[in-house]
């Protein structure tokens, strides 16, 4: 935890020095932050939404949840877990029972007091397999096995205290409250005047969802948005136009995943894995954003990613492909729902596969694909929960380990049969409007509460 925390700090500090520049100016209240997101979030109830680690969709949910609700604990910029709604916590010797003492005086956005019971009710659906109980001033987590990662889990965005009331309204504990909700399209949030941490600078946040990359760029160029998502492919162009950008540490895993029951010949999977020239993809298509990888966790989280060989071996790939029957050298790749960048990466992989003697074609609609190209968002900067969520999302055996060496061995074992072929870890890139000030996320977690907008001249 301490090691990746220092890297996180370094990455955050390297983000164009926005914080330093903004801090020199005096903040003031007012204004609505206009955010344009590509994904469409259809439900804000954490108990209803599955833990969707698909990049984009999960990112959008996390951002909205973090606006609406606070967590019991949070990561600070150094990667240390800090109190948030919980002022203190303690656990027993084997970490199977945890108790968090709640911050006094905190209210739900509908005016109700945040007590142990209401907090437990909100978290019960989030921390599955754990008995969550609440008292007047605390929340307790009990299970029959150790929960060493509980703090990291509770620091994730999905652990924000958000509740769906009986009338269907969504209320949280965060700096902003939901005033308008058009599922999948539009969310309008207003500043929570009773926020325990003090009223945010912004009067509100207007979030428009389902915006295509082209629309987002247009919004960005025409100053119709303050925050837009950008593809890594657009980073160079935006930089050349001297637009403000913010790039997160690698937060997504781009990987190929063979679907269950397909491509059962290990030689076929290995041939494809060895045929892929990741460096060319990184240099050209990813515009050298993020990092090349052959591991599930990025280097800044795991510390061992560099030891997974990512170089291609075209000769060996062809040798393996030649050993296969001609009929089994063809693969269908599912690209459903992916952005143009992923399509470009898939095209390049197809070229590499062709050199090895393999045929990789997009799967037509209605046909069964052999593998899919996935972009998965890391759920936590803590390697344990992050790996656990990734393996779950990839359909791999769930073997999270606290120990770094054991985790390395586990990850190596998970990837040995090439059912998952990691390609790269990508950052999240956002374009920032020129009057956005004090944009200082921690890791990939936005801190909208501290953002303010410079008045237009």
């Amino acid at each position, binding site marked *: 935890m301490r090691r990746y925390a220092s890297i996180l700090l370094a990455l955050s500090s390297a983000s164009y020095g926005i914080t330093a520049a903004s801090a020199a100016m005096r903040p003031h209240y007012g204004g609505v932050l206009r955010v344009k997101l590509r994904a469409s979030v259809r439900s804000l109830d954490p108990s209803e939404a599955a833990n969707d680690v698909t990049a984009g969709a999960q990112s959008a949910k996390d951002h909205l949840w973090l606006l609406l609700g606070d967590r019991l604990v949070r990561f600070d910029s150094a990667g240390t877990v800090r109190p948030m709604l919980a002022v203190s916590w303690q656990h027993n010797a084997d970490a199977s029972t945890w108790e968090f003492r709640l911050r006094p005086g905190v209210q739900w956005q509908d005016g109700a007091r945040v007590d142990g019971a209401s907090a437990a009710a909100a978290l019960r659906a989030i921390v599955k397999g754990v008995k969550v109980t609440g008292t007047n001033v605390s929340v307790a987590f009990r299970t029959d096995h150790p929960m060493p990662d509980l703090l990291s889990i509770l620091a994730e965005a999905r652990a924000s205290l958000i509740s769906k009331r009986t009338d269907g309204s969504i209320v949280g504990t965060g700096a902003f409250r939901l005033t308008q909700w058009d599922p999948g399209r539009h969310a309008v949030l207003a500043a929570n005047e009773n926020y325990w941490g003090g009223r945010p600078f912004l009067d509100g946040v207007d979030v428009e969802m389902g915006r295509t990359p082209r629309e987002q760029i247009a919004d960005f160029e025409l100053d119709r948005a303050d925050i837009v998502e950008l593809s890594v492919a657009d980073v160079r162009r935006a930089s050349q136009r001297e637009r403000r950008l913010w790039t997160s540490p690698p937060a997504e895993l781009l990987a190929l995943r063979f679907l269950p029951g397909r491509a059962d010949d290990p030689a076929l999977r290995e041939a494809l894995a060895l045929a892929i020239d990741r460096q060319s993809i990184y240099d050209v298509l990813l515009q050298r954003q993020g990092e090349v990888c052959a591991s599930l966790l990025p280097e800044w989280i795991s510390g061992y990613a560099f030891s997974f060989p990512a170089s291609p071996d075209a000769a060996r790939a062809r040798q393996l492909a030649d050993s296969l029957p001609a009929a089994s050298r063809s693969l269908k790749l599912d690209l459903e729902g992916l952005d143009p960048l992923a399509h*470009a990466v898939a*095209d390049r992989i197809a070229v590499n596969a062709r050199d090895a003697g393999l045929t990789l074609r997009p799967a037509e609609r209605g046909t069964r694909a052999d593998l899919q190209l996935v972009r998965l968002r890391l759920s936590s900067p803590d390697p344990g929960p992050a790996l656990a969520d990734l393996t779950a999302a990839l359909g791999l055996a769930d073997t999270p380990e606290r120990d770094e060496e054991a985790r390395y061995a586990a990850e190596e074992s998970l990837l040995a049969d090439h059912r998952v072929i990691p390609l790269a870890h990508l950052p999240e890139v956002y374009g920032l409007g020129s009057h956005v000030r004090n944009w200082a996320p921690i890791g990939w977690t936005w801190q909208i509460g501290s953002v303010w907008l410079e008045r237009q001249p």
Partner: protein
Amino acid sequence: MTFRYKLLIASAATVLIVVGLVTLTVTRTARDAFERLDTERSDALVAQFRREFSKRGDEVARRMAAIAESETAQRLAIELGGSHPDTAQFVNTAQDLAAANSLDFLEILSGDGTIVSSAQWPARFGYREDWVGQPVDWNSRGAFLQREELPAGPALGLIAVRTTSAADRKIYFVGGERLDRRFLQSLAPPAGMRAILYRNLEPGFSPQLLVSSSGSVEEPQKLEALINTVRREMRERKVSVQWSQDPSSVEVVHAIPLTSSSSSQGGQQLLGVLLVASSRREQVELEGFIRRLGLGAGAAGVLFGAVLSWWATARITRPVRKLAQGAAQVAAGEWSARVEVDSRDEIGELASAFNEMTRQLVEQKDRLLQAERVAAWRELARRLAHELKNPLFPLQITVENLQRARELAPAQFDEIFRESTSTLLAELENLKVIIGRFSDFSKMPPPRLEAVHINDVVRGALKLCEAQLAHPGRPPIALRTEYAKDLPALQADPEQLQRALRNLVLNALDAMPGGGTLTVRTSQRDGAVVLEVADTGEGLTPEERDRLFTPYYTTKQHGTGLGLAIVQSVVSDHRGKIAVESEPGRGSAFRIRLPIV
């Protein structure tokens, strides 16, 4: 078939043949003209394609030169000419340049041939195209055909290469147009013609590599042999292809090999086959129209010819028909028949000759009849004299004896008188019999017809002749009868038939004075009942046979010569025929044929 119909058919056939020949000639002439026109059109399109191809090549080269001379190209050359060029920023440049210059293909290659950016296959960045490094002055070289690799498979392109240099570093721009349906459509073939392109991108023939300006190529296998021939021989070929059962679906396909004359791939390769197809629909439809017109005109001609021939043959054959009718009348015995023909041609002469012939026939007939009558009277007189002379002589002797006996004693006179009167009475009786026979012959009544079974008539007649057959002292004559079964009844006079048959039987008995066999046989043959009476007597000489039925002719010592004449008369009255077969020493056979009505 009558002469008139023959003449009619001949006339109609003549018209038909003439019309058919005219139609055939017109059709063939039209076909030859269309084929010449088709050849000219096909050659024109091929020439047009060559010009268009050349023009397109020039246009591609011009656009590529514009790209190479653009500011973007200069910036690219400068950027890529650095020590550590960042090629990633240009990965989409080729697509932008290709779109701006309406090019299907464009690749930007660094000095070592590495793909920096590819419009047609963006993912191929980093790969090398070594062929651009060959010692060629690309900037002066025109466009050429080249095989281009694409994600979906190879394609055929009209490619030009241009270079841009900066600080002794060179970059290549390789781009052009794709030879596909759009390209073929841009050739704007004239109506009735279409261009088909076979992209020779695989070792064997593949229907998927065929693309047509008019859409998909149906039944591409019909072009397989032609394309394979061109691929093998690398020279132009021309064949006709019928796409369906419809004859108008025929197209003349002119196959032109497209080679990499300025190839990047070394040597001259066949990269495609251009098929210029010219529809023969108009020609076939015109031929069909001419054929239908010919058939219609032929039918009308035949109809008109038939009517005309009918009228003409009627005029021509009318006198012939009159002649035929006249001849038939003559054949029926009406010798005085005449034919009225007004024409003065050969038919008129023939009619005149016919009339002259009948006139002479009538005259000769009259003369013959008169002569026969004279002969008959003479014969009658002879027979009558002969018959009467026999009894007259005894009468004369008897009367003279009576005269002489008057001077004898009364007793002797009485005796002589008694004997003489007895003789006179006997001879007078003979005279009476003779006269009776002549009287009977002259009084032959017309037959009284009724349904008669011939076998019954035969049995009746034979019964009447039993006494003669069994006459004592006569050598034995065996009677053999053969009656046919199921003979139909005849309309006949049974008494006359019986009388005729009895005459024949008695004649047969007379012909066998030394005995023999009498055969009486009935049968049915060719719509008639045949009655045959045969003997095994001495037979007849040819002269006797010829005069056998002449009245009053007889070969017997005391015959009147009327028996067979009566038989012939009876048979004739029953519309029958009588014939005799006989040879001397082998007997005679009389056959009476009576028609069954």
